[in-house]
């Protein structure tokens, strides 16, 4: 998957739509590097049904834990067992080998609320700026 052709959530999942309304889900390289070394991934079972922005799994990194949110509603049709058995591939290659699940979408219209790549990049920039502002304010307060 090429990041430029993916769409993104505010929670840093990416979606790439394959033929037949199947959405491939993963996390962005920004999220993977923020989490650091990933040691465990818990993913839903094939056949389960999920709603948009439901937590569908968990990522354990050495330092922290994060939920995986489903960017779309639908049925889980594939799970990346390679990523489950060797979670470090998510750090190495979050857009290709490190994908999590494939979802047969109920409503491709849900994709409209997601960021495209340039919006996501802008969003990351804004977040960093906000974090910096917050730091400044904290310093001013003290």
């Amino acid at each position, binding site marked *: 998957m090429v990041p430029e052709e993916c769409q993104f959530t505010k929670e840093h999942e990416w979606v790439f739509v394959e033929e037949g309304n199947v959405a491939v889900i993963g996390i962005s390289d920004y999220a993977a590097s923020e989490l650091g070394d990933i040691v*465990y991934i818990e993913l839903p079972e094939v056949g389960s049904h999920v709603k948009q922005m439901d937590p569908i799994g968990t990522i354990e990194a*050495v330092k922290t834990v994060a939920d995986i949110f489903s960017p779309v509603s639908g049925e889980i049709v594939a799970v990346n067992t390679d990523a489950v058995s060797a979670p470090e591939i998510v750090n190495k290659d979050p857009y290709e080998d490190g994908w999590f699940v494939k979802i047969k979408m109920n409503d491709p219209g849900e994709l409209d609320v997601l960021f495209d790549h340039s919006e996501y990049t802008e969003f990351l920039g804004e977040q960093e700026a906000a974090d910096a502002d917050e730091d400044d304010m904290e310093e001013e307060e003290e």
Partner: protein
Amino acid sequence: MTPKKTPLYEAHVAAGGKIVEFAGFLMPVTFEGIVAEHNRVRTTVGLFDVSHMGEIELSGTKAVEFADYVVTNSVAKLVAGQVCYTVACNEDGKVLDDLLVYRLSDERVLLVVNAVNTEKIHDHLIDTAPSGCTVDDRTDRIGQIAVQGPRSLELLLASGFGQSHAEKLKGLAYYNFFTFERDGEEVILSRTGYTGEQGYEIYLPAGQALGLWNELLGAGKGMKAAPIGLGARDTLRFEASYCLYGHEIDEETSPLEAGLSWLVKFKKGDFIGRKALASEKERGPARTLVGLEIEGRMIARQGFTVLYNGESVGTVTSGTFAPALGKSLAMALIQSAAAGKGEFTIDIRGKMIPAMRVGIPFYKSRSKD
């Protein structure tokens, strides 16, 4: 308060370190990734900036006697050139901090305390010091660099810094140190560390720290030496099952509970917390620090509940995926009555995950002492 920077802060930023605020300091949490840094220290050698640690010097005719009263281990028994690991307790026998005590001379003692506790311990010392003992917080004037890993001695000997003291370095035993003058100022070099590997810690004037840091990195190039962040410092100490203040020990925990009874010397004179600890020893500590191996790869983190037969018996103090061992491990403080049991469960975000009692330390290096 604006966070402080160590003398090496700019070097960490330039080296691509991810900076976080820790105990009032801007510190690198990781450079290349916690696991890679962890394995570097286990297999070759890494450099740590630990300048955030607090250095408090006691001096005067009463310095040794006072240090002996403040901490549980025996400072009086040390000779100049020896260092001991110890805790300082409050009157209730609970841990104020764990620290290193360096006996510099019969009238000078250096206490090395956790950054998060420097101010608290400094205040405590000021409140309790007798006349004839001066308390001086030297933290801002001292830089501290730790060189840790099986090739740490080799790295030091490859540097001009270590070469000038080669014989002393080679002969330096675990928990011993020597001092020397460098540009007219005192430097302390000890064989100590917080990684479970052979290693050394160097205390030097803040203004000399950056020069030495770069010199050591250069000398270690052939050994693939690199800077190591606080993240790997934590996973390394965890694998070696060393206590961390705020996790295994705090003002709610006694050293006897945390597996540190070897630090409490009841045979020496009076010390703060003695009475409470003596009676705790007699009735037996309420809790015991244990090691647990978690089934699967989920991580049992601090604060998670440990259960035996469905009943809560304690709490996880630290847990992570141990990089060198390839297992999800945890330390936990559990009711002493349950400490002899073998099979527990841990509540990991609502899931009951089996955890087996295992011995600590989890990891033992052949090179350390």
